[in-house]
């Protein structure tokens, strides 16, 4: 790979080929194999430098992988099987346009949860979070990966919380989507009164949807406006638990149908214990034993208008639902308060993924279905685990209602020791295939699912290839991703 042309184009400190720097981009998941380390790291400072890099890559047949989070990189999103250069945007830290009235702000790709949360908190806003993201995780990257967030009633569409955005095509051409899709500068749009919150367009184009979920192979996002929410002024976090998932399921259906309650999670006791003890894994067994098999964590809140009364009537009405399905609402179980669980779930967990705390590594397998079918897929996973000699008490499950509970995201988490790698590798493949054979939907394909889902639906795969041809005709961005 001829890197001289890039070195000559960028300032000296924007290019690195040192081995120690390159090693930081290794995927920190032993199950992810076959990926190459980058040949160089480029750190452009602005859109113009980025555009030059992309245009040069097109001319010189270089391949680019875009990275926005800080190492360690736990997922295969940045994995590339071809010789490539990393373009690292983690230093792009702009947060602006923080707008309480319209509940929106703009972030660049390098902005992390740790950086955003205190800024919007001051303005009385919060952000629907994925489950305890690692510190250093790029918000833009998480949104583009459609990571499940925790506020189903406010999750109107799978695109949320992404509003408008700016990106570069694989050819380097600049584009903006939504109500930012106007040639005038951002400052001028704001002066006119445009918050750039509109999620669709321009015209009949929905290119932001093509980029979302593409793991970096359709375009390079350089900023996004994101939807924020009002912060409750008063809240309670209730715990409901049962050994029968069906009871939890009915409770969640009834509460979410009324659009009651705020942030909400469903865990099994294994996952909950992993989350609550990642700083003290020695407490894992004790915490796990404190809970029944399945737990729903339900926030109830008031905001600015008669907040106490809102909290009171919602608590009363939600309790009626709980009682109706045979569940009890508790603010604390086994010395763990619901508010502690919510705090752990919404706080970045530090450099190391909390899932790895128990045994050093964790297999994560995720899929999407409707809540009424969650139990069926847990059964399929259980059966596959049993065949592989893995006991039910060794793994956990997180069920996250999304898009107003029209579907749920399910993550199976199997902590394991490095010595068991080959066994777990075989299990990941067999479990994924078993789920796939039963029409599990892998919205965010990683691992084995990223290899097998494309044959399930050849027409969609063909269209995806056509869209790749449109957006990145020379296969400059993350080549090989999804077989493209």
């Amino acid at each position: 790979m001829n890197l001289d042309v890039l070195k000559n184009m960028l300032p000296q400190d924007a290019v690195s080929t040192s081995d120690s720097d390159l090693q930081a981009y290794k995927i920190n998941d032993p199950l992810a194999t076959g990926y190459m380390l980058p040949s160089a790291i480029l750190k452009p400072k602005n859109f113009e430098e980025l555009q030059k890099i992309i245009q040069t890559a097109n001319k010189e047949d270089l391949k680019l992988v875009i990275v926005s989070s800080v190492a360690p990189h736990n997922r295969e999103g940045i994995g590339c099987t071809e010789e490539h250069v990393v373009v690292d945007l983690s230093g792009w830290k702009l947060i602006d346009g923080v707008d309480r009235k319209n509940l929106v702000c703009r972030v660049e790709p390098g902005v992390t949860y740790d950086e955003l949360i205190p800024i919007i908190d001051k303005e009385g806003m919060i952000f629907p979070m994925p489950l305890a993201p690692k510190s250093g995780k790029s918000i833009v990257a998480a949104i583009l990966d459609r990571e499940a967030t925790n506020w189903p009633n406010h999750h109107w569409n799978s695109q949320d919380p992404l509003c408008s955005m700016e990106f570069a095509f694989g050819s380097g051409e600049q584009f903006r989507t939504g109500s930012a899709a106007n040639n005038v500068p951002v400052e001028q749009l704001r002066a006119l009164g445009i918050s750039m919150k509109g999620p669709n367009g321009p015209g009949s184009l929905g290119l932001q949807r093509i980029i979302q979920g593409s793991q970096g192979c359709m375009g390079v996002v350089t900023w996004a406006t994101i939807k924020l929410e009002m912060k409750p002024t008063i809240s309670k976090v209730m715990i409901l638990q049962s050994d029968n998932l069906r009871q939890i399921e009915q409770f969640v259906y009834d509460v979410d149908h009324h659009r009651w309650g705020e942030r909400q999670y469903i865990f099994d006791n294994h996952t909950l214990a992993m989350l609550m003890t990642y700083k003290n894994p020695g407490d894992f067994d004790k915490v796990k034993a404190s809970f029944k098999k399945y737990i729903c964590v339900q926030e109830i809140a008031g905001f600015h208008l008669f907040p106490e009364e809102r909290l009171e009537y919602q608590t009363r009405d939600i309790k009626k639902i709980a009682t109706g399905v045979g569940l009890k609402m508790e603010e604390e179980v086994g010395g763990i308060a619901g508010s502690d669980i919510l705090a752990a779930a919404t706080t970045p967990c530090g450099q190391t993924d909390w899932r790895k705390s128990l045994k050093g590594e964790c297999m994560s397998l995720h899929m999407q279905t409707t809540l009424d079918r969650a139990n069926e897929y847990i059964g399929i996973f259980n059966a596959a685990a049993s065949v592989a000699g893995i006991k039910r008490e060794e793994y956990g499950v997180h069920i996250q209602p999304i898009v107003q509970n029209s579907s749920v995201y399910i993550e199976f988490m199997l902590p394991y020791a490095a010595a068991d790698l080959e066994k777990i590798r075989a299990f990941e493949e067999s479990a994924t295939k078993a789920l796939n054979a039963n029409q599990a939907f892998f919205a965010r394909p990683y691992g084995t699912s990223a290899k097998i889902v494309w044959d399930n639906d050849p027409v969609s795969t063909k269209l995806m290839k056509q869209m790749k041809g449109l957006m990145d005709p020379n296969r400059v961005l993350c080549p090989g991703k999804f077989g493209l």
Partner: protein
Amino acid sequence: MYNLTDEQRKKLVEIVGEENISTEPWQRDAYGIWFASQPRPDGEGVYWTERAAAIITPRTVEQVQKITQYCNETDLMIHVTSTGQLVAGAATFDHTLLLDMSRMDDIVSMDGENMTVVVEPFARSIDVQMQSWKKNCNPYVISIGAVGSTLAAATSHTGYGSIGTSCGYGPRTLLGVEWVMPDGDVIRFGSAGQGSGWFTAAGPGPDLLGSIRGFNGAMGGLGAYTKAAIKMGPWYGPSEIGGDEIAFGCKTPSNFIKKGGLPKNMSLNTTIYPSMEAMSDAHYHMHEENICYSGSRMPAFVLAMAPLKDNASLVKEWESGFHKKIYGYTLSNQIQGASQDEYEWKQKCFNKVVSDAGGIRMRGVLKMYPKIAEDIMKLFHAGLSPDEYRTLQLDIQARIDALPVTPIDIMAAGASTAAALRNVDPGLARPASAMFTLGGNLDTWDAGVVQNKLTMEIKEPYVTKGGILDDGVDTGCGNPYEGGHLGYTENVFWVNRVNKNGAETLPKAIGDAVTEIQKGISSFTISSGMNNERFGPYEFDYQIWTKRIKKILDPNDACDSTTYSGSPDHKEVPMNG
């Protein structure tokens, strides 16, 4: 005029049967539309759409697929219409087979727990609503009325409606689409394509819905959508139509206004404000806490028009100035509670928001209470000090709240609730029979207010010259969406049809809309294919990218795509900029 050859006709008969092909010229002309059509370059009005080669009414996806495949082998093209109201549903070339989807009208499935429905193209919102209420769900309904296609509103065009704050915005309620692509392949996006069920269009990996749906859809010009999965909102009202105590629950207007009051967990609130700022302030506060089930801003002219039977009465009423002075800034909001406790909390919050914003909650027919009307005029126009304003505001509100509930109140609440739920058209097209609209960008409410202001600047000179009816200029109609996160307004107007002046005005006004784009507004309602070339250069050349998609997906020009990708020169567009 293009007529099918014997061979073409024979082939199509084989696919759909003789009875499902119409080729008589009068039948073909019945599908012609001018609304939102292309302005003529000479400024002499707008083009009427082309006479299609034939009207075909398929029943199955297989038939649609075979017709599409046949168009790939011949010079015929398809264009699709469901309940078609705008030019998007009409042919733009004479060798087009217009697919009228009226026989594909099934509600394929409805899932009350997951709040989703799968529909065919001609399942209308009213059809869906009649079934979904039984499952405590409600589909989004656009302002064309509940007779509009639920599928088309979500997949193919824009469309606004008053229940968007609780039921979502149509295109963003899409959870899946079955699409007969221009090359004849049949695709189902997302989970349906993987055989997993109709619950999301996004994934695996990219959300391919983005290839056909942006601010606008493909407007019938990129193949046929034969199924759509839609996410519904909650419904807290009665499950059956026609209950005695339900004011709006009947099939005919004359019945619903005669029946009893609204259910106890519902109210319909009309509120008025002294200014756009005060109205917007109330709007933000009531929606950010999800107090309202529906919301809309109706301009004074429309409010004057709605209850009157004829244009002469409207002229008299409008020229009295009463509506302009009282109803210049009016919101109509429905409140529903999932429980009685919730309803009461919401109503209390609503009342506070209105009061804090300096507004008045109205009831009944104000003209029956001239003293109150007189005091409201004083409140809004007499330049009172803040203290004087507050004192008079509270006094007026107390007097209104003390008024007895009359049959007219019940009738008005029932009629307005029905209108909100089903977007019953209050006779918008009646004056001059030539309504048109500008604006309608989906962003925040603030952005809608900005765009309305810009549209008023365009419109005012044409009103002065008489090309557009004098409707007070500020006819911005708007709604909140998704709990107030999004909002929009569009400015409706009425072209003068008495003389040539009006015919000349319409294309000029549409042309002037480009100034809004130049200032910073992005796509809005008329940003369809025929305006792409005009607007696209100010919006990152989206017209070029649209043509690139057309070129990739429809290499044989099997679809009549003017309403999607504009002028048919897409083959000349380079693929790599």
